[in-house]
């Protein structure tokens, strides 16, 4: 089945821009990215969009379709009706470069601030022994394709530009959790998570989990367990009292 689809696509750059209307052919089985490509080939050769694998594995084509953060290559046209106007904009938590391409450097900056994997003392290559059940929790987080949709939807930075310096976002709080749960990692990131990465700003409203194309349970499996770990270290009255009485940790 082929029909003329109605698209409204944001075009512009950081100076300004607007939604432009397009009528474009839509064929059976296509995804939104196919339509963007058809627009490039037929009507707007300089329409900028980021994409790579077109199979939901690289996390490049993140944007917002009808206001919802999505991967363009995983948004099937069949979820829309033929007469519906489909609006596509760049991710709105980041500054825009051009058209559908945002500046995602915030994420790379934050990636550098999480203490890296710290290898255990005295274990050389080939000597690592870990059980499957010990690696499974972190493996879930390593499914992350870094599409940054969770960063885009998180209201902490989406609605408050000023929080960006103090908040690493769900993706990188999850990275801290991943390493905390790594059976052989030797570092402790609990204080950093709270003081440097802004874990306390997270109010666990779960939008990150809702938009994750990999289905990672970011909130339940990474952020809340991380909050619990921090609570155990920082806000546990028994531990606090113990530290006072026995002067531990000083």
């Amino acid at each position, binding site marked *: 089945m082929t029909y003329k689809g109605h698209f409204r696509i944001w075009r512009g750059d950081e100076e300004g821009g607007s*939604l432009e209307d397009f009528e474009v052919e839509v064929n059976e089985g296509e995804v939104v990215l196919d339509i963007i490509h058809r627009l490039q080939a037929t009507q707007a050769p300089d329409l900028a969009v980021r994409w790579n694998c077109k199979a939901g594995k690289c996390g490049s084509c993140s944007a917002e379709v009808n206001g919802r953060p999505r991967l363009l290559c995983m948004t099937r046209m069949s979820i829309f009706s033929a007469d519906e106007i489909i609006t596509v904009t760049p991710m709105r938590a980041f500054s825009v470069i051009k058209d559908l391409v945002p500046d995602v450097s915030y994420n790379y900056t934050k990636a550098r601030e999480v203490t890296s994997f710290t290898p255990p003392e005295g274990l050389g290559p080939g000597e690592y022994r870990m059980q499957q059940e010990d690696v499974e929790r972190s493996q879930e987080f390593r499914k992350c394709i870094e599409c940054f949709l969770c960063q885009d939807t998180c209201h902490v930075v989406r609605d408050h530009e000023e929080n960006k310096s103090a908040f690493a976002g769900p993706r990188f709080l999850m990275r801290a959790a991943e390493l905390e749960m790594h059976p052989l990692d030797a570092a402790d990131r609990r204080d950093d998570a709270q003081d440097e990465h802004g874990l*306390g700003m997270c*109010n666990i409203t779960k939008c990150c989990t809702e938009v994750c194309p990999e289905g990672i349970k970011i909130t339940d499996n990474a952020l809340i*367990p991380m*909050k619990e770990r921090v609570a155990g270290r920082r806000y546990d009255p028994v531990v606090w009292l113990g530290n006072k009485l026995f002067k531990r940790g000083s």
Partner: protein
Amino acid sequence: MSTDTGVHAPPRARLPVSTLRNDRWWVPQVLTIAGLSVFVIYATVRVFLQQNYWVEEYHYLTPFYSPCISTGCVDGAAHFGRFIPDHALIPYAALSLPFLLLFRLTCYYYRKAYYRSFWLSPPACAVPEPHARYTGETRFPLILQNIHRYFFYLAFVVTIINTYDMLLAFQTADGGFGLGLGNVILVVNVVMLWLYTLSCHSCRHVMGGRLKNFSKHPVRYRMWTRISALNTRHMEFAWISLGTLMLVDLYIMLVASGTITDLRFIG
């Protein structure tokens, strides 16, 4: 709402509207407000009613009055003694209710629910919140959400008491075994309370989640696995247990006041 912050901050794509979502994103929030409001209003009224909480004949005690520790409590309902003054503004279960309230108030699910619906922070995903500033749970009072775990411990104890009440209700006033519709509702309620309490994120953490190496603690790993499975339905249990609490209380109130009679199967 300021127009030059958040999604309208200048380097971002310039768009006249705050959200382009065209679905009915407010529906879950409206339902949440309705659901929570019903419970809060009902519970408040019931707690200060100070009557119709105990069915002497079948030993039914509503969880809203358990443990009944006020000097105003009727004789049979007070299993743990009566030691707080009887006053119209002091609930009969004044020792347990605040902790149960705080347990639910600091619960990770309820936090999500009321932050979204009552505080609109955010109203829905990718819908801007109407606040100029946001600090999350970094400051007083919200930083106190971090002590959820201790309310879990206390709620655990209260749930044991609720279980005890539920068991006592199988004994009728004449000392024999009894079973009525009230017992069935009490059992269902206690089961749901346990499911809600055990599926708590803090429970999941202390039972095993805090460990780095599961393989060295096989028993705790098994517990963690089970609790994790329950945890995925924490939201469901949160709502169902609110409902069963109201149901069991309403039923006992109606039986105690003589409005209806308990449907008896045995005794």
